């Protein structure tokens, strides 16, 4: 059932046969409402207020300063750099993990035997915390001991040093974030591939289309809703859930080269105690995720599943 349709119809979506009680429905929904009001809406409103205020370092007085925090933010070269970094990071993670996931799923779908075994062998990285993926790749890409780092140095003749060079550090967090996401994408792609009617593929085969041709002209178009959904989910993942990866691996360094937006909010607000600036950054992120969510409900009719 499409998310958008149900969301819009929530006014009418109710059972014909219902129970009547004056207090019970309120009691049942109460825990949910109390938690959302306390830990979601109140903080969000506070953030909104803080973003248009300037407070002194002791938090005693605050003055209303209109959008000055936002102006400061968008004229700050460090913030603009962070936006660029985040976009590059997000695109790279999505590209690497989606193409790998799709490739493996296509192969697994061709393999008639051992589908269940293959799925078991590929599904478990879903359960690995992004932060732990960070530790694994930190070791693999360690400048002195890492085996992948060694391979990079040998094969490409690069002087690999993620501690000092920003682009190397960026490569590191991309690998750690993308690796973890492959299995999530794989699960969706294999389900999408299995939903494509065999008869279509057979008909094309009888007409003499080669397996590659069939892949591009039948599989890919029919898979596009899944592909689209997975892309949106991967972008949300790389924007918000990769905090652990950055915190474990680079702490935003070297020289801010891996300081993606979520990490910068944390650093400026929680470590640097810049209330107004951090609140303004939060509002920017909030706008972003609202846009992505609405976009998704507008265009993704099928498959509603969130990480939260």
């Amino acid at each position, binding site marked *: *059932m499409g998310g958008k349709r149900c*969301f819009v119809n*929530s006014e009418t979506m109710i*059972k014909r046969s219902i*129970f009547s009680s004056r207090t*019970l*429905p*309120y009691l*049942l*929904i109460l*825990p*949910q409402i109390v938690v*959302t009001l*306390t*830990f979601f809406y*109140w*903080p*969000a409103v*506070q953030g909104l207020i803080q973003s248009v205020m300037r407070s002194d370092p002791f938090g005693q007085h605050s003055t209303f300063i209109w959008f000055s925090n936002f102006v400061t933010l968008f004229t700050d070269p460090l913030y603009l750099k962070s936006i660029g970094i985040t976009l590059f990071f997000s695109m790279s993670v999505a590209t690497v993990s989606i193409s790998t996931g799709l490739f*493996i799923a296509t*192969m697994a779908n*061709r*393999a008639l035997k051992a589908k269940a075994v*293959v799925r078991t062998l*590929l*599904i*478990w990285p879903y*359960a*690995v*915390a992004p932060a*732990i993926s960070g*530790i694994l790749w930190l*070791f*693999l890409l360690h400048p*002195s*001991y890492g*085996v992948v780092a060694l391979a990079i140095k040998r094969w490409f003749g690069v002087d690999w040093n993620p*501690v000092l060079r920003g682009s190397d550090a960026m490569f590191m967090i991309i690998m750690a974030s993308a*690796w973890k996401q492959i299995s999530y994408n794989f*699960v969706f792609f294999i*389900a999408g591939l299995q939903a494509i009617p065999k008869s279509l*593929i*057979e008909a094309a085969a009888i007409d003499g289309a080669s*397996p590659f041709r069939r892949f591009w002209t039948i599989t890919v178009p029919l898979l596009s809703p899944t592909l689209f959904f997975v892309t949106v989910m991967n972008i949300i993942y790389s924007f*918000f859930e990769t*905090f*652990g990866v950055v*915190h*474990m691996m680079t702490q935003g360094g070297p020289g801010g080269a891996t300081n993606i937006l979520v990490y910068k909010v944390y650093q400026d607000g*929680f470590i640097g105690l810049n*209330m107004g600036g951090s*609140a303004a950054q939060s509002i920017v*992120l*909030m706008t972003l*995720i*609202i846009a992505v*969510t609405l976009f998704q409900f507008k265009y993704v009719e099928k*498959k509603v*599943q*969130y990480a939260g």
Partner: protein
Amino acid sequence: MVEKTPILDTLTYIFLITGIIIVGFPVIYAIIAATLPIEDVCRVPMPLIPGDQFWVNIKAAWTEGNLGTNLLNSFIMASGITLGKISVSLLGAFSIVYFDYRFRTLAFVSVFCTLMLPVEVRILPTYEMAANVLGPFQKLWTFLNLDGVATWIAGHEIAVTLEWSILDSYTGLILPLVASATCTFLFRQFFLTIPEELCEAAKMDGASAMTFFRKVLLPLSKTNIAALVVIEFVYGWNQYLWPLLITTNPKMTTAVIGLQHLIPAADDLPYWNVALAGSLLVMLPPILVVLLMQRWFVKGLVDPDK
């Protein structure tokens, strides 16, 4: 496949096996490293034959990383979130689907919109909230100058401080994360597919709303609950930002966060064998949950409507 293409089939299997090995490589490599003594781990390149130091490294990780306490904390947090999310959403969805009341739509929309407010976009204010959950009431109290009123009534100086901090507590780790738009939405969708006749029959037999919920809805929701147990347990276990914000007491650290103390710093001896042994131990519980409940998990992840 459709036609016989032996070359392509062979290639398929070769690519597939390569893919599985590449995906598994970081963990396979970590397992090997976790069995080696420190001299071997920092040899370049590291030997690929497992050593016999696995238990030694696990023990070192267990004591240095304080894993006994941390794993227990993670377990409590993950189970609490799972249990809390599922029960809160089951009740919420039941209220939204099977009752008609004035604020029904508002309740649903307000729960649903939390999707757009992940903790990452409200770090500081949520932290402040956790530092004093009664903060809003305190503000209201101060705003209405109730201290003055109370002083006037009592005839002597009265200052009321409303304070309840959930920092460094299991409540703090669990409670803010139990509201869930996802679960509520999924249960709502599922309840909407349940035939009307079931409810009519139950009502005819004189069943109360809660009896219907317990005897009919809960048993029917078993598969959905199983799927969500996997998804939410993994979600709870792998939480990072929230526990990082609200726990400062080492006794309340979760396992994933505690691992950062095991990563060798630049000027330490490179005890990567210990760090990786610890990481393997911490990633094991959610992996086991996913593998053991794979069937429900895939169903829940891919087609949440059913």
